[in-house]
């Protein structure tokens, strides 16, 4: 079976099609939701609900288009909503604290310590800014696609992404100049 056949089956009410889609997309989807919610269990719940939503609205889906981007938009949207309801991480560092040492980022990204600090720092971003970072860099989405996922205007996405990225770039510049 391939993805198109799975969608065709699902449109005809055969949940075997959904099982195929779940197995194909659940890994990326749960990790995406995790980056936004910061909670593995909540991420699984979000993706489970997103699959149920896809099952309910598959009639609106154009089968000539790939399923992944359409589905990931709903995962991001649901994860942002879930993250807003989640309490903030009390251990979270600010982004300013994140890049306060001397090692290069290229070396840092491989270390568990850095990843933990990035996790905490992401936690301190508002959910929508966190979501645009995840959409852009983890899911490689374009701005129009991101706008559809977050039900917002492309201009707002541009601004959100610009704000989030500007902070990261500027923080790195500060760190490198020390």
């Amino acid at each position, binding site marked *: 079976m391939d993805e198109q056949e799975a969608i065709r089956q699902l449109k*005809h*009410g*055969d*949940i075997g099609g*959904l*099982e195929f889609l*779940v197995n194909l997309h*659940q*890994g990326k989807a*749960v*990790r995406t939701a*995790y*980056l936004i919610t910061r909670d*593995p269990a909540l*991420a*699984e719940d979000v*993706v*489970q609900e997103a699959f*149920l939503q896809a*099952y309910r*609205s598959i*009639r*609106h889906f*154009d089968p*000539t*288009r790939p399923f992944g981007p359409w589905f990931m938009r709903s995962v991001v949207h649901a994860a942002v909503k879930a993250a*807003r*309801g989640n*309490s903030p991480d009390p251990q979270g560092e600010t982004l300013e604290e994140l*890049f306060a040492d001397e090692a290069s*980022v290229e070396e840092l*990204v491989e270390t568990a310590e850095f*990843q933990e600090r*990035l*996790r905490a720092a992401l936690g301190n971003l*508002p959910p*929508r800014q966190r979501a645009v*970072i*995840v959409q852009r*860099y*983890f899911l490689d989405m*374009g701005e*129009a*696609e991101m706008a*559809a996922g977050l*039900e917002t205007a492309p201009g*707002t996405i*541009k*601004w*959100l*992404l*610009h704000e989030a*990225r*500007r902070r*990261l*770039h*500027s*923080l*790195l*510049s500060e760190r490198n100049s020390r």
Partner: protein
Amino acid sequence: MRDESIRKSLEALARRGIPEEPNLWPRLAARLERKGSPAMQTKWKLAWIVLLVLLGLFAVTGVAYAVYQYFNDVGLQSASNAGLISTVNVTAQPTRMPTATPPEPVTVIGNSQTLEGVSLTLEWVYLMDGQQAFGFSVAGLEGGKAIGMPVMGFGRLVPEQYRGAGLAVKDNTQPVTGTYVVNQIVRDENTFGKTDTRTDVSIDIPLLEENGQVLNTFRFEVKNELVHDGPFAGGNVYSTRANGQEMSLDWILLSSKTVQARLCFTPPDGKDWTIAPPSIQLVADITQLGSAPQVVSSQSTTPTTENGVRCQIMTFPVGASGAQAFTLNASELSTPAGEVIKGEWDFNWNQLPSQMQFPGIAPLETPLGSDDIGADVTVTLEKSYADINRMVFVVFIKSTQTDFSVSSATLKDTTGAELNTGMGISSPPDDPSRFIIEFYPETEFPAGQFKGQLIVEIGKQLGPSSGLAEAHFAVDLPVYPAVVFAPMQTVTANGVEMLLQMIKVTPSFTQAYLCYQKPSPADWMIGSQAKLKIGEDTAIQSMSTLIFDSPRLSGIGIMPEPGWSPPVKTGRCMKAGFPVGYQGQPEELVLTIGGLEQSMPEVVPDDQVQAARKKLLAQGIDMDWVTSSGNGGGGAGPVINKKPDGMSDEQVMQLFYEELGYYYPGPWIFTVEIKP
């Protein structure tokens, strides 16, 4: 932080958080068994039966069921999914539009001077009412010598409303060439509008040493030069106000090697305030401004103060070759004592001197594509759709050149009369060659069949040459009617009663007729974030029209609504439009009016902004309201520095508007079961 580093970090972080492959299927399958198969659900069966009946009634010919998801709004998407978008696929060769009388060309000068071994030729001069420019070439510019910012004088005419100047120097080729443009009004008020204005022009161009000191100055005089009619052009920001402090970009010098900018401000007190190093983003494609690298200023002159205005010249270690736009951002003023004023002073320019076209003179750096329309260009009308609320056409431009676009479009009836409509043009995501053209009627298109002509005007995406050619298409398409519901539902929130009188729904668009008593005599309208959910589709309000107002607020226009009479004697009625449709199945409709809004004045007094900011700070929100002005007009917008976790930007803005008195919170939520 480099993009690749962010990507790698997120990958690693996600793998660490979710190390094992999840297995969601067993739990999902259990939940699905409890819910049953979608194919078996009565609601779905009903929906498809209704849809098939509707399709039969509409007698649509040439309907395509598998269509691309071109559309950004859910109404058109669902109309598309329901097969209501007709496939046309008619291709036309565009015909060239009549060429307008070419403007009078620049005055060619060609005078040369040699100073310190450097020869400078003033090539041309062009004066407009709102912008003045000249071009030059230089030979012998060696040993670190450079051209500085020129000064133009206009004899007895005193320029007014200065809006910044730019100098582009192309110094990576020989001879070095340059274009200088200054935005200001040069006008003889005694003769303006009656006779041509002519003036003498003086041009001083400094020759700089390597250390930036003026070595000598070239001076040219041009006699009796005509000042052409012409407004400020482009959208360049000259000054911007943030955190109560104004700053201006006095001039910018863009060369192939570096960029210099002169920033000025009036200090809030007599202290030694300086601008912290600003940053600049230069892009070859204006749509990339958000993602271009930021280059921080590497050098600044000592501030100079003249007439209370303090200025610094900043140097950025980046060349501007090929740039079409930039954003310069300053974010801090400080004193040696450690006092700081934070702000977001952004200066956006999308009309650089290097790209500007003056009559008869090619720009220093030509935008992509040629100015002419090639014989290889074809325009295909791919799809069409109409209901009483809008007509939509999808066109595709095929060309070996990449930058053609739809610059305008008109609809005509069979008599050749142009329809009175609003019009919007957009492109689908990731598909810049396809264009969605939407027409909105002043009231409603008549339901039934529309026959007429669509005229698509083709222009260039870059540069001023829009409207080069036209493609004509005969149009014959069904106009779907609306289904009308009359809930007459009343909801009271925050002391204001609101009536949902009527809902008019087409397959792609919904209009809600709402009446309410205003909370004060001011101009209270339905809030722009009003939201409509039909079934699983949600849309934000895309239009609203005032259709009744009593007592009538002075200066407020009312659009007549044929065949409708207000259900109230006093108060206000509005028609709110949402790009979400209804295909005839039983659905729940939820209309949420979050609040009422008054339009903000162009300039909000700074003391009101500061008072609102103070109140928001007490709620954990640090935001600023930034205003800017330039040669393309002014603008204003928020900068949100800090807000409580979980609060959206929209919520922050609502609180801000509320503190300013421009927002009256509800919400008014209407739930209506709609059935065919």
